[in-house]
């Protein structure tokens, strides 16, 4: 049997997903036995043309991690799609936008202003913005175009499977890789992780969800047995797909939501808003206001990993009425 042809690529991402793949430790040998890695910028030093010159469908499976933030990301996503039989959105950035997706609370102009003019670390002439093409004495120089809106992979190309996580847990990765190696892939479109939300696998004791205060983890002595949310710590577990093994909550840290929504919720952030609103134990509008104001950065908390893939997608644009 010929070896499986595997590609791994990153677009707008931190690289943590690459490291996570290496985290499967000695099992990487099993992968090596079954698959030939034909393209992996982190591990080898391939060039764009190496892929572009491949015949269509030359790659069996492509794991693409990272969001689509600029024209280069998009171009590579399209090329890889064309060359791959199976495209997997790997990691939260690629599956639903991830941390780079938080940029959708701003637009390109605001981001450039902040980064190239206002930022404390701006050196040299402030207000010089990158532009896709510049003419220098030697000729024209080009860089990819920075998009106004961060996109998920499936907003650009068709995606066959999703592996969520920031980064995906080792077990999640192994489940996916094993399925690939054995050829026992689930139904197209499946998110390869848990079906229920995290609370199902979180071993903390759930009693009554009623809170009168919202606290940050460092402000309290956390009871290691009880549900964090019931202790007033905003935990995204109730609205976040499980399958991660509840790594965070077993380490006394609330779930940050990296596995995204379940198949049955359209918008993870909106679900979290209604979940938190539902458990606030007060009928007095003033008191409720006081309690909700204790939550710093609600938008960033609720949509931390899922903004571009959510129903909202981004902040409303001012010029759209």
């Amino acid at each position, binding site marked *: 049997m010929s070896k499986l042809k595997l590609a791994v690529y990153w677009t707008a991402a931190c690289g943590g997903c690459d490291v996570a793949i290496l985290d499967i430790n000695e099992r990487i040998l099993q992968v090596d036995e079954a698959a030939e890695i034909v393209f992996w910028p982190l591990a080898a030093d391939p060039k764009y043309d190496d892929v572009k010159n491949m015949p269509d469908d030359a790659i069996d499976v492509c794991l693409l991690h990272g969001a689509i933030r600029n024209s280069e990301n998009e171009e590579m996503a399209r090329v890889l799609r064309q060359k791959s039989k199976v495209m997997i959105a790997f990691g939260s950035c690629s599956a639903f936008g991830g941390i780079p997706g938080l940029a959708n609370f701003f637009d390109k102009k605001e981001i450039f202003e902040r980064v190239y003019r206002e930022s404390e670390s701006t050196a040299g002439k402030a207000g010089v913005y990158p532009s896709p093409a510049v003419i220098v004495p030697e000729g024209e120089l080009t860089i990819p175009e920075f998009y106004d809106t961060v996109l998920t992979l499936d907003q650009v190309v068709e995606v066959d499977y999703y592996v969520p996580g920031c980064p995906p847990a080792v077990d999640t990765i192994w489940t996916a890789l094993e399925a690939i190696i054995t050829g026992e892939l689930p139904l197209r479109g499946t998110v390869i992780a848990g*079906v229920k939300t995290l609370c199902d696998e979180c071993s903390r004791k759930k009693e009554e*969800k009623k809170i009168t205060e919202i606290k940050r983890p460092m402000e309290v002595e956390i009871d290691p047995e009880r549900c964090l949310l019931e202790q007033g710590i905003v935990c995204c577990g109730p609205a976040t797909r499980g399958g991660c093994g509840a790594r965070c909550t077993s380490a006394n840290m609330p779930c940050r939501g990296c596995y995204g*929504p379940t198949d049955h919720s359209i918008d993870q952030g909106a679900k*979290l808003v209604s979940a938190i609103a539902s458990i606030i134990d007060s009928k007095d509008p003033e008191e409720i206001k006081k309690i909700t104001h204790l939550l710093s950065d609600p938008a960033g908390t609720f949509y931390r990993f899922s903004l571009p893939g959510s129903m909202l997608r981004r902040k409303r644009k001012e010029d759209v009425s």
Partner: protein
Amino acid sequence: MAENIGVYVCHCGSNIAAVVDCEKIAQAASEWDNVVIARDYKYMCSDPGQNLIKKDIEEYGLTRVVVASCSPRMHEPTFRKTLEEAGLNGYLLEMANIREHCSWVSKDKEAATEKAIALTRGAVRRVVLHQPIKEREVPVNKATLVVGGGIAGIQAALQIANAGYPVYLVEKKPSIGGHMAQFDKTFPTLDCAACILTPKMVDVDRNQNIKLFTCSEVVEVDGYVGNFKVKVRKKPRYVDEEACTGCGDCESACVMKNRIPSEFEVGLGKRSAVYIPFPQAVPLKAAVDEENCLYLKKGKCKQSCVDACQREAIDFEQREEIVELEVGAIILATGFEIFDPSVGPQWGYGIYDNVITGLQFERITNASGPTGGKVLLKDGSEPKKVAILHCIGSRDENYNKYCSRVCCMSSVKFAHLVKEKTDAEVYEFYIDMRTFGKQYEEFYNRVQEEGVHFIRGKGAEVTEIGGELTVRAEDSLLGVYREIPVDLVILNTALVPCSDSEKVSQIFGVSRAESGFFLESHIKLDPISTTNQGIYLAGCCQSPKDIPDTVAQGSAAAAGALAAIATGKVTTSPISASVNEDICSGCKTCLNMCAYKAITFDENKKVAEINEAVCKGCGTCAATCPSGAITNSHFTTEQIFAQIEGVCENG
């Protein structure tokens, strides 16, 4: 999904057609996917209108129907029935409200038509995803619980009991009778309140079908229409009801005699710690007031009541009891409370001796009251000038926006009674005179002829000028500012919701209106039902009203309960939520959200469960569930989003 949809646009006479171009909607609709026929017609709800739908269902093989007309709260049941009659499940209907949402709220014909088209398109998109669902039938327990023993509760209880069915009447005070028992005479006929109320109270006592619980409150309600399970907390009376004959010997012997302000006399008279609330009380039994009985409070008293009672009825060993009842229907008749005028120092209540409330005046003028029915000032002399102030705490942005409905008439009644009993000049300060009931205007005319001064202007301030009580008001008819010295001021205070109505609304799962009174299903067409099927409202707990209206509503609520009892079954809406066990993560977020307590948790399976029969299909839990595990039938996410997309789409 191919469906055959018929779209029917109603003109509602000119109600819709005067603003919205109905023909244009029908034309637009005829172009949409799945629509096989689109018509506009003068009155869709009329027989010919409904027949149009039935004929089309047959001729065009319609599988779904959209009616663009008035609010579904008005005619959804009508059109559901139309569909059923033509052999189609009634839930394969969707309505677009192009009257309340379009023609009635706009003069801009173009914009209103555009919006009407959008709403109709939303309905068409949604109806494709409708599923046929069936109403459920549940058996009905034949007993009824009536909560509150005022005239409303008494009327309802008697009506049902006289029809031959059992009633449990729960009253929190030691006697039934409510506010009416405190009145002297009642407008407009000036019947003595006791004369018309007491026989009814006695009937309650004697009726074999009525089981009366006094000193009792409902603490828990479970179940659903036809099958409620109720827990009643019966507080100890410390008097054996069987043995007590109501002779009053204990009351006279009590060491606290004449030392405790009497509730019945609104603080104008005093009572003992063991007391009979009033001479006509039902049941006519003594009760010990825990708060003021020396023995119960401090454990130290010579217990002269025990010695005085020849029947050995005093029983300090009595303890609170929880009684469990099963009933098919519940009638809430918890009445009202009186607005406390001491919150507004401008009215001088609690500051000046001779400023009293209307209810206190009822006691003063009552022959069995603290002054034996003589209208007297605090010092025992007869007043020479009396002011009656309307709308204290009513129709007032600062307190209650609503009109309390009975105070104009009771003020006129007070004026008449003062005139009848004294030689005093009487000044009435009113904003508008509202005497709308049967024989009310005639009563007002009669009192006007008795020489009462009616001053149009709200009594703004009660103060003392030169040692004399004075009412300040702007006379809006004469356009002058007046200061009228008087020696008695009667503040006719608002009727307000009971202070425990929030708690009561939660126990019974009924909603409250902005005013705080319980909310009816439909203000005009169903003022006795609540959104909690099987729970009815009667009397002032729904809104302030006079005795005739209270009695009418008491009977109407009884009729509502009797309808279900007589047939032995009720149909409940098939719209309800359910939990998908394969998705529920057991997070427990939903558990506290159901106003009807339909959600429980299965600790073995670690999933939430919804009791379909109790669920009202409100959708709160479905919106709450962060897993998306809860689906509300007929309001699924897909249906709602299809509708939104239909509304938002252009063209």
